[in-house]
């Protein structure tokens, strides 16, 4: 059963991911990425990582909606009616992409995972959340805090880059 769901959602994620670069409508492209990520969230649920799955589903919906508006802003033909080709070095990319898939899959297939495998049963979902909380605010506190600081830094940097320099300042500098 679990195998079926993993396969199903994995396939859905891949199909939507392919759709991202196949459609020329920006809105569809962003939504395809969104549903690809949603399928991944469902895949996490199938892998019994309930918290991560739900979090993924929630975060990606907002994130990809923001993506959508930027795509529409920055593309020449967001409706995708011009039939414009927006890609280059297709051959190389295709080869690189396929090569990467082969290589990574081969590594995955030939590694002897048995030697590493430990538990086969994950804890119940509410147990997991409790453990994750203790992990975050205990042993991995530093990492967690670093992530927070990084977010703060990124917020400030992003705002600084994105806002327009007022006209008088600009002339002052030049």
């Amino acid at each position, binding site marked *: 059963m679990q195998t079926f769901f993993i396969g199903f959602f994995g396939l859905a994620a891949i199909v939507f991911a392919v759709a991202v670069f196949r459609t020329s409508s920006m809105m569809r492209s962003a939504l395809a990425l969104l549903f690809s990520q949603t399928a991944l969230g469902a895949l996490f649920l199938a892998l019994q990582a309930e918290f991560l799955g739900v979090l993924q589903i929630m975060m990606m919906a907002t994130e990809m909606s923001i993506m959508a508006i930027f795509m529409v802003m920055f593309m020449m033909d967001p409706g995708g009616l011009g039939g414009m080709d927006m890609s280059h070095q297709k051959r*190389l990319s295709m080869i*690189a992409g396929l090569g990467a898939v082969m290589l990574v899959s081969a590594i995955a297939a030939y590694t002897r995972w048995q030697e590493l495998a430990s538990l086969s049963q994950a804890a119940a979902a509410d147990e997991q959340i409790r453990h994750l909380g203790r992990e975050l605010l205990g042993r991995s506190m530093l990492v967690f805090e670093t992530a927070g600081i990084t977010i703060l830094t990124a917020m400030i*940097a992003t705002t600084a880059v994105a806002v327009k320099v007022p006209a008088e300042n600009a002339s002052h500098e030049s």
Partner: protein
Amino acid sequence: MNPDLLLALITGAALFGIGLYGVLSQTNLVMLMMGIELILAGALVNLVAFWRFLHADSYAGQMFVLIVMTVMALEMAVGFAVALARFRARGSVEMEEAQELKG
């Protein structure tokens, strides 16, 4: 050999490949970022799968996933800020028109 693990890893590999294709082939910065998102998504799948099948008792694995999600969000925010600044300055976020960035 656990077939579920392999299945999840192949999914991750496929997403990585598609993302790589996108990053290399797209000319628009925003589309390029979609590729990066997919590559990171591939990494996410692997992390969750490793946690589930190899270290189901160690929650550092789950924490890693959270960090990657943070990175995805940050990557997007910073990427869009750069795109915005560039669009304002040059009127374009096309890669082909960013030749001057070549060293």
